């Protein structure tokens, strides 16, 4: 097959890192080529060079057989290269059609021809099978649909080479399935696609070939049909990785968390959690599966004291903690890995050390009787946790903002786990975290369980729920629709319940599986 794109010997030196070290990459006409690697391995840099956002220090780029120099995105667009970024660049109050044509608007005399824009948007979305209403406002669209608009924007500009930078990081499992469908459609229409990700399952589901980068160097390119999860993981990390969590049977003890008829409303008065009853015992992991937005976040924040309950009681180790302050709940033996580490879990501009003491910053030995901080104690504590949880780089004074996603998450995990809480809530504990760190965090969760903690795990990743949990609850539309032992939970069954199926209607094998096969 002929190559639409070839990148040869691409090298890019940043002030302190060699982001790309003579990387070769090629793309054939009409193929989906996955580019994988851990965070910071140089995937995005390579594609940013292709799109003209960075200038390469060495190497050459050949598009459709012609050597080219791309020094700004305009040139990339002229070469029919389109890029969809992880963070969308859409104007929220405008409609889909207006966003698609933005920058090359259709005019009728001095005025915009809105009707034609809408027609154009509709034509594109029908042609490529990306169903969307061109007259909808961006602000009213789900993240998955917004991403479609980004793809349509690129197609409108004539993209024949489409680069997607971690497109699935922001999507729910259902949306990922839809995206994969869309990519297959695009491929059928002849579009060549580069798919950047660090999730191996997606690679196997959608790509024709896969290239692996590690620390700026290309480790290899494989035909997807000829490789497997284990091999790719090892190429990415550079050592043998345990994809399956090793754990023994659970030994549940006393009841640690008890929810009685808990209801939670959001700030607009909508019921988000409806009459939930749940119990978690020490020494077990209870996983809550569910499509995001079905009340898991609100339920967990209510337990943490960050959100008021509108009804019901919450008990922690027998004490009624309903309405307690977050600090008091923490001190009663509670640890919490929040779903959004940037918003909730970390003060990004604080050092690693200062983040490691958040929540215990007011206790001995970190402050003395006069209320003065003991820097020595703080640093000593931080250095111990950095070593134990393998935070890299191992610098206590480094601002957390400068750490990779996986290491930021290790800081949160270290802080919450080290307190050995009776109740530990882990909400999306491995979101946006690379393979090596996922393995580490999963082992730590099981270690906490075996120590005797009651662990409540909330995750949008079914694999994660299935591999860590001892019991699984499914949450749909604010309600716990079913709780089952792990032995009865299958991906089929959970998928069925997560989408609103009633437990009594479930028959094994009835629902078709998701597009991603494990």
């Amino acid at each position, binding site marked *: 097959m002929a190559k639409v794109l070839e990148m040869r010997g691409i090298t890019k030196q940043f002030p302190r890192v060699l982001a790309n070290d003579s990387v070769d990459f090629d793309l054939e006409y009409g193929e989906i080529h996955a580019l994988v690697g851990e965070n910071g391995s140089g995937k995005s840099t390579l594609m940013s060079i292709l799109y003209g956002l960075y200038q390469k220090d060495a190497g050459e780029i050949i598009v459709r057989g012609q050597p080219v120099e791309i020094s700004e995105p305009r040139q990339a667009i002229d070469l029919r290269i389109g890029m969809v970024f992880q963070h969308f660049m859409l104007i929220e109050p405008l409609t889909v059609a207006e966003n698609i044509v933005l920058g090359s608007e259709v005019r009728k005399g001095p005025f915009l021809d809105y009707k034609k824009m809408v027609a154009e948007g509709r034509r594109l979305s029908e042609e490529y099978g990306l169903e969307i209403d061109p007259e909808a406002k961006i602000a009213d669209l789900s993240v998955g649909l917004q991403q479609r608009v980004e793809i349509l924007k690129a197609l409108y500009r004539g993209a024949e080479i489409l680069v997607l930078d971690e497109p699935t990081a922001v999507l729910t499992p259902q949306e990922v399935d839809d995206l994969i469908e869309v990519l297959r459609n695009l491929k059928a229409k002849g579009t060549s696609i580069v798919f950047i990700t660090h999730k191996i399952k997606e690679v196997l589901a959608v790509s024709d070939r896969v290239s692996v980068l590690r620390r700026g160097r290309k480790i290899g390119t494989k035909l997807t049909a000829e490789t497997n999860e284990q091999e790719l993981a090892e190429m990415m990390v550079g050592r043998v990785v345990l994809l399956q969590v090793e754990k023994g049977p659970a030994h549940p003890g006393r009841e640690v968390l008890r929810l009685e008829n808990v209801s939670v409303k959001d700030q607009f008065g909508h019921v988000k959690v409806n009459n939930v009853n749940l119990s978690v015992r020490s020494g077990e992991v209870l996983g809550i599966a569910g499509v995001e937005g079905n009340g898991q976040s609100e339920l967990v924040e209510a337990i*943490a004291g*960050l959100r008021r309950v509108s009804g019901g009681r919450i008990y922690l180790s027998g004490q009624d903690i309903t309405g307690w*302050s*977050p*600090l*008091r709940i*923490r*001190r009663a033996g509670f640890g*919490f890995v*929040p779903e959004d580490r940037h*918003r*909730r*879990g*970390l*003060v*990004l*501009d*604080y*050092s690693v*050390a*200062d983040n490691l003491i*958040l*929540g215990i*910053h*007011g206790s001995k030995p*970190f*402050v003395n009787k006069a*209320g*003065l*901080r003991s*820097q020595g104690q703080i*640093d000593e504590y931080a250095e111990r946790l950095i070593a134990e949880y393998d935070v890299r780089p191992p*610098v*206590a*004074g*480094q*601002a957390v903002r400068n750490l990779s996603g996986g290491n930021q998450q290790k800081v949160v995990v270290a802080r919450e786990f080290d307190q050995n809480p009776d109740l530990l809530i882990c909400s999306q504990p491995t979101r946006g975290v690379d393979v090596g760190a996922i393995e580490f965090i999963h082992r730590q969760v099981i270690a906490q369980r075996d120590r005797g903690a009651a662990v409540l795990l909330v995750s949008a990743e079914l694999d994660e729920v299935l591999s860590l949990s001892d019991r699984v609850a499914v949450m749909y539309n604010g309600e716990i629709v079913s709780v089952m032992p792990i032995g009865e939970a299958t991906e089929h069954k959970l998928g069925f319940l997560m989408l609103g199926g009633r437990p009594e209607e479930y028959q094994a094998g009835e629902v078709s599986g998701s597009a991603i096969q494990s």
Partner: protein
Amino acid sequence: MQSKAKAFPWQELLLPLVAVVLALLVGSAFILYVGENPLKAYGILFKESLGSIRNIATTLQRATPLMFTGLAVAFAFRAGLFNIGAEGQLYMGAFCAVWVGISFDLPRIIHLPLAILAAMVGGALWASIAGYLKAKLGVHEVINTIMLNFIALFLTDWLVTGPFHGGSWVPETVRIKPTAAFSRIYPPTRLTTAVYLAVAAAAVAYVILWKTKRGYELRAVGLNPHAAEYGGINVARNTLIAMAISGAFAGLAGAEQILGLHNRFIVRFSSDLGFMGIAVALLGKNHPAGVLIAAVLFGALQAGSAAMDRSTSVPRELITIIQALIIFFVAAEFLIRRMLRLKEDA
């Protein structure tokens, strides 16, 4: 290792410095326009502000209230609060100081500290109203501090022209007792020991922000209130405390003006010292040490402006323009960073 914010960020000094240089450059265009030599005008400005010990003393005197109001704004800013109300807090603090200064007969060792304390309490309480409105009712502090400025202004107008009027034809109180006044350091300049208090206040602000549990919580609230709440930090309480401490610093500016400079409360004496504090904090990058340096710079500009006005045809208003330009260029940080980077590339 220490965290980055703890040591004075020297690398951060470059940007304000560039802003000052650019402001002087643009200012020289104005000087050329009125037909003077910029070097000569700036020469006089420099000589009259820093050319002798006496001139330095005048500069420091001008800088002292700006140090206090700059600290007030910077402290609140570290907790994520934009305190536009330093002016009003300064007036309330000043009034409390003058009241103690007039009403009591006490030995100096008690009277002066008591008057200073009263000014701090006055400023702190006034700022606490804003803090309460923000913390409990969610009224944005920018709006409510602006409103409180007007109230403070008219309230002190009334107090000084009414119940506390000194009896003369001028709208001012009687003089405070000498036992409540700061001592002059370098007569005949009006530099007083209040300048030591300002440096001490900066040290206290630094210690609170970076060496105490309270400061850890305040800064966490300022940087990420959601994470602070998650970490068991009471956001509302810290908002209130940050505003109170900020107001205490502004109150100290009032104390300096009353107990050091005027020795009485003259209606509307401040001439925007509180608002200048915003500029000082901005230029000083909201760091106590930076605030001190920025205040001295603004003090120098003011101290030298009168002489420049006298000996050249450059009006003293030029100084106001330069101050505004400094703020403009500090605010245009992005622009300057870009210019600096371009230079590196070339």
